[in-house]
């Protein structure tokens, strides 16, 4: 559904994106994470056909991104919500639906349905009079007026309060369940982790790691084992009448078991804990800085 092959974008001497390649299958949710200036937005804009790659190619929904027809199957949500604030929400959305050749009745039904799901009232109000969260909901609705198969969302919940953020993330999850192919970027890695099937980590314009979460954790994360014993062993902490020792390998688990038995006790429970995406990201970034240093 989406493929990027060795995408590169230069602005004069500055290389914003270099050698970016990935594919996203139908119905997958692909997250792009990275620090500010990593090249996430530039990558998304090249996918949306807004920026021409300096080199490399990208295809979305079977079209080259340079083809105008591609945009009929695409819903793009930029990081900001640059709306025409003098228009009402409904007239704004109807205008865009018309540009996408959506029949009037269909557009009206679709717009109201999406706004209902997003719980947006005051639809006849001028956009300029709306709150930031309301504007974001209008922008999301605009990205769906053409019922696209592919959605490219750049920081969909950026700058919103926690309640609205949660609402929008849940809505995005819902869209994923409906079968939309979604590529989105976010600073909040918890959101990416919660809804993405696959993730690419970008830094300095390059994709430095990619894969599904398990692959990333295997490659760049750490698995920790929480071993609960009935007796105190070295480095353990008393917790609810038990003792917990955190170790990072199965050998250390075995060692803990031995120590507990030697102390006349036993192991009650062993729990495994994987690295979060945030920890994976930090590990990748740290190892990159070491390799560059």
């Amino acid at each position, binding site marked *: 559904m989406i493929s990027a092959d060795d995408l590169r974008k230069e*602005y*004069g001497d500055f290389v914003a994106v270099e050698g970016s390649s990935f594919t996203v299958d139908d119905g997958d949710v692909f997250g792009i994470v990275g620090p500010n200036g990593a090249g996430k937005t530039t990558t998304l804009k090249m996918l949306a056909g807004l*920026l021409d790659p*300096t080199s490399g190619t990208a295809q979305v929904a079977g079209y080259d991104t340079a083809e105008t027809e591609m945009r*009929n199957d695409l819903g793009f949500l*930029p990081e900001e919500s*640059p709306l025409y604030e003098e228009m009402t929400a409904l*007239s704004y959305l109807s205008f865009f639906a018309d540009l996408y*050749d959506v029949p009037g009745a269909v557009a009206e039904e679709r717009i109201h349905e999406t706004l209902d799901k997003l719980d947006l009232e005051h639809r006849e109000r001028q956009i300029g009079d709306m709150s930031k969260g309301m504007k974001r909901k209008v922008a999301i609705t605009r990205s769906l007026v053409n019922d696209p198969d592919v959605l490219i969302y750049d920081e969909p919940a950026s700058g919103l309060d926690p309640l609205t953020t949660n609402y929008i993330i849940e809505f995005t999850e819902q869209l994923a369940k409906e079968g939309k192919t979604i590529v989105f970027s976010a600073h909040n890695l918890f959101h990416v982790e919660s809804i993405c099937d696959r993730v690419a980590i970008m830094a300095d314009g390059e994709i430095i790691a990619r894969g599904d979460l398990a692959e990333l954790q295997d490659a760049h994360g750490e698995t920790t084992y929480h071993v609960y014993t009935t007796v105190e062993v070295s480095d353990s902490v008393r917790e609810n009448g038990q003792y917990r020792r955190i170790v990072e390998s199965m050998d250390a688990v075995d060692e803990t078991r031995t120590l507990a038995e030697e102390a006349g006790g036993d192991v009650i429970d062993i729990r495994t804990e994987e690295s979060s995406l945030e920890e994976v990201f930090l590990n990748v970034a740290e190892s990159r800085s070491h390799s560059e240093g």
Partner: protein
Amino acid sequence: MRPRKLLRIARWEVTKNAGGVDRQTVVIALVALALFTLVVPFVMSGETGLDEGLYRVSVDEDSQFSAVVESESAFAVRDGDVKAVESGDVELYIEPGLITFANTTKGVAAYEQLQSSVDRYNNRELRQEVNQTAAFPVSVVLDYREQGGLGESLRIADSEDEESESSAETGDDSDGGETERSGESGATDGTDGDSSGESDGSPTLDSDGSGSNGGGIGGFGASFNEESVSGSPSDIDPPFPFQSLVLAFLVVIPLNFLIQAYGSTILSERTNRRGELLLVSPVSRFDIIGGKTLPYFLGGMVLESVIVAGLFLAIHGRPGGFISILAVTPLVLLFLSATFLGAMFARSFKELTFVTVTITVTLTSYAFVPAIFTDVGAVALISPLTLLVRELQTETIAISEFVFSTTPPLLCSGVFFGLGAGLYREEDMFDQRSLRGRVLDALVGPIPATGGTGWITGRLDSILPVNITPLRRYIAVGGLTVGLIPFVFVVQLLAIALLFALGEISIILILIVVAVVEELAKSLHIYAGYTHGLFASGRRTALFLGVASGVGFFIAEKVALLAQLVGLPELAVADAGLQGGIIPGPAGLTALLFLFAPLLLHVVTAAISAVGARRGKREYTLAVGLAMLVHLGYNLTVVSTLV
């Protein structure tokens, strides 16, 4: 481009601000409307009205000046006698056989006003005489001729010279010595003399004798009325179509309001990235630009059509002005395109204000200044507004004249829209680069990037039997130079219009303008290409780029031969400015020099600039300066041969 989507965007452009028009805009519109409705009757009347009731006059009912004073709006009749003059209550006291005026500046002015009022009154009376031959016994045919070149004044037709001069002399003689003024509270007795002087000395002008240019016969009112042709020699005005010009100016005024609104809507797409979502919707940038421009173009045309039609209806009492409306169309496009490009360059509304003011001043000058010379010479045809003035004066307009006046602004507007459209994309619309950077971005747009086929070569490849892709950048550079020719042409025409009246020095000034503008047009996009890393830095590449640009310019420059169709090159400065030098001599030599001398010039100077451009900004500046000097030297040589 998809018409349906373009029209949808146009409809949106019109309706998105519905109900949101601020008070300031409404006030400006009302002021403009009021100005229009006030100016037209004022100009149509041919009277200023500013001096109405300016002078207080006490006149005895038995005085023959009583009717004169009554008919003159500058006079306010007051009761009183000669003491009223002394007390300052009136400026003039008129009684049979005696006129007393106050010994003040205003009193003297009132007396002079009375003299001219008597002249006009007498002329009006004479025109009502049944026997016009008796009233105006001398008939003079004036034939105004176009100015043939610099320094040549208007000439009266040879066959009529003596007659004209003699009549003028007669009039002068009879006018002179009619009045005497005493000093303080002086008196004059010359009433009879005035009227007899007019009747004796006034020539009778023939309406048919207005010449092929037809303008300027006997005062303002006569501009549109060929019957008002009798009068005194003092009624003979130089051929200056004041009334037509002022009315034509009304055509330009609305455009200045139009571009304010248009510039705002274009820039607002660029502020806060508002236009980003249109760019990502399934419409091309040309749909967006076309859709946003169409309402302003149509609105402008409707407004102009109403004004032109109204002028014709008011002046000629019948609908008309079709040619004028066609002639104004390129002007509307030129204003809009220049504003569009300016709005793409501006980074804020503050900068946009500067841009629109610059456009207003420059384009109003371009439209208005040449039109001042409507009845003087072909230089007036530089402006399409001249066609409007001439149609208002019921003169015929040749197709070649129409083409000459309208083609440069039309093509120039195409260049401006093209350059602006090159910037109408995500990576150029929303950044905050400097004006210089944006100009270079605009110029580099049509030059293909590494690996790209290029817009021009891509199309040529599909037409031509050979693959020209390896030459794509040279072709693009040459093509871009060709594309810039209308802009060069318009700048040169404007320079000619502004400078030609300065005499001999104007030739030098215009040649400098020519050298500067042409060398910039040939090299600026090459420099832009280098700054964007599109060309290899070798000297050979630079030379080839110079050759491509020089050849492109040479080919396109010959479009300037269009000027010859209407005789503009009769002006020496126009000849030098537009032809690139045609050296007189044997036919073969002329042809050789006509073709190869300018070609060599353009190639050499473009190559000089290109070689400098490859090294950087400072070197480019020096190189293009050198190229300008070479160009100027060449032009001076050619002109010294011609003139």
